[in-house]
């Protein structure tokens, strides 16, 4: 059968196989929440407000989990940024009745907002609880409605959304590279959280390229994956924090 012409760049091309991933260095994270703010701005995430946040309805695609260690006065705060782990064996994908969440050929766990009907099954199935729900119609306090990102849709009420590894930036980098007739290079793509991290705790890259910065870090002996025992095969690699993360 002849291949139909494709109106979009063919990411399934075996020469171009990519596995996007992120490395999170817990030693470097200071818990400053810059990634959370940058993510909100980049992805047009609605602002839930204080009251809603108190009952667990923040819509952060990335969050800084803070854990206290030790007893007063020897208390340490530990920070752990948690975002969608872009699992290869994602528990959220098979449960969706309308295919609103699926796996892209380049290893992303994608969410199609316009297809979601809001069963919230994926949210219940996700062990990392990184899928957030639009409880109400989106609202942006002034003047934030002036800075919405035109590359990202604003989501309707009643649907699930989650971290996309800033897929709009990935696709933009692909397009730019193909226009300039070159390959996408390591470091060309930076999701908003990676770009804004002042201590470079987050590193994004292609794990299928063994020379990428992210792949090299992921091979280190501090590397671990969150809830690895569940067999979800996440694409986010954490680097264990030691005494420096105090």
């Amino acid at each position, binding site marked *: 059968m002849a291949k139909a012409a494709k109106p979009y760049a063919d990411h399934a091309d075996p020469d171009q196989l990519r596995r996007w991933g992120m490395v999170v260095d817990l030693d470097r994270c200071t818990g400053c929440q810059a990634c959370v703010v940058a993510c909100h701005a980049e992805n047009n995430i609605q602002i839930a407000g204080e009251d809603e946040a108190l009952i667990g309805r923040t819509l952060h695609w990335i969050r800084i989990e803070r854990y206290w260690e030790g007893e007063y006065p020897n208390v340490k705060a530990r920070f752990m940024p948690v975002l969608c782990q872009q699992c290869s064996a994602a528990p959220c994908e098979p449960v969706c*009745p*309308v295919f609103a969440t699926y796996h892209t050929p380049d290893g992303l766990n994608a969410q199609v907002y316009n297809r979601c009907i809001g*069963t919230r099954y994926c949210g219940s199935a996700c062990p990392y609880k990184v899928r957030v729900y639009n409880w109400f*119609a989106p609202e942006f306090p002034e003047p934030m409605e002036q800075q919405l990102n035109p590359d990202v849709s604003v989501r309707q009420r009643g649907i699930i959304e989650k971290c996309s590894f800033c897929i709009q930036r990935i696709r933009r980098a692909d397009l730019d590279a193909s226009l300039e007739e070159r390959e996408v290079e390591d470091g060309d793509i930076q999701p908003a959280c990676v770009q804004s991290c002042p201590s470079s705790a987050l590193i994004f890259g292609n794990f299928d390229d063994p020379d990428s910065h992210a792949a090299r870090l992921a091979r280190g002996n501090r590397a671990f994956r969150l809830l690895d025992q*569940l067999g979800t095969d996440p694409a986010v690699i954490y680097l264990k924090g030691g005494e420096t993360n105090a």
Partner: protein
Amino acid sequence: MPDLSRSEESASMGSEQPELSEELQGRLLLAERTDKEINEAVLRPMFQTGLGFWILIGILVAIIALGMFAWGYQIRWGMGTAGINQPVYWGLYIATFIFWVGISHAGTMISAVLRLLKADWRRPITRGAEAMTAFALLMAAMYPLIHLGRVWKFYWMLPYPNSRLMWPNFQSPLMWDMVAIFTYLIGSMLYLYLALIPDLAMARDHTGGWRYKFYRIFGLGWRGTEGEWHKLGQALRIFSVIIIPVFLSVHSIVSWDFAVTIQPRWHSTIFAPYFVIGAVYSGLSALAAILIIVRKTMHLEEFLRSEHFDALGKLILVAGLGWFYFWFSGFIVEWYGNEPVVRELIHDEITGELAPLFWLQMVCNVVPILLLFSKRIRTKPWALLILALAINVGMFTERFLIVVGNLQRNYLPFNWGEYKPTWVEISVVAMTFAGFVLLYALFSRVIPYVPVWEIKEGRLRYSLRRIGRLLVPTAAEIE
């Protein structure tokens, strides 16, 4: 049996045959009735709609109106008007959904299983049970819509040719759910209707006005010929066999909504049989409660006798013991396994915040099992009513704990949360309870509540035969 209308006769019969047991007397009593008397006894209460009945209807309609308003409010403003949050993405709606699906299980249990086993005591209660199945399922079927974030797109779950050129995802347990529930709903409604046809024809022959027109349409011109009875019998036998696997599959699939995820305490192989047996337990109890109330309000004491409640009580007892066995089998393994999250969940349930609910559930579900061992309690309608209602409170709480209790805690302690239902959720849940009672009340005034033809058929089974000078009670094999 002091409340029998024809007790003088039974007393006189008793003096003639002192060795007859009370139970046999009751059966023989019905055998003595003519067709006409039975028809009348069933039809009379259908026409009696006193002031109390209309007040009840008014209250139910008011509750339904409030619930519809709440649902509309939720659709207009978003799911945020309900109390669910992250991580408790499913709350009271899903718990009530499981509850209604559970209630719907006893109807088939009673009528199909007992029809196949030729259990004779089922006869007067089959219709009430089948109606309960159909109406409870209707209520259950509303919940997948109610809890949808974009309910106006619900039809995206249906497999139909569409501009997106897509099937729904048949890997999703929600799709299995939808298929199973629709199959069961259609099956149980047909099953209810099939057994109704001779009685609708009977009602047609004894009524006038709008009722006559109604019964004439739905009686499908039934004349009661030999061929018609043969076909009805065959259809009922086929349906009884087919609907049993369907009924087993429905609650299994509902349980797999939870069990196929890797959420701690949901991810359990025992969930399917545990849900099914729990469904039968709560469904039979609900049936007992309904029968007791209907018997009182529609004066059907003659048909619904203590022997029926005794047998129903025994079934509830067996289901209750089964429920406890499955619950304990699941619990002991998880508790002994001592996984950190599971330990936290169990700790939270038994001694933590959820402890009041957990112990309410345990008391309501386990104490009735112990009491139902006593025949005196089983045959006392008011005692059975209290136990049956308690079991349903217990089973509702159990479903709430399974859904909400296990979602509040998960692998990453940072995401632990709390859940409190809002007025919207409570109103919508109240709406479905009121809707169920309303449908049932209207049904009982339009449709012969006791299956007359089955009673007449069963009447042939027990009779007094004269052998020599002795009157001997005999039981015959029929069908």
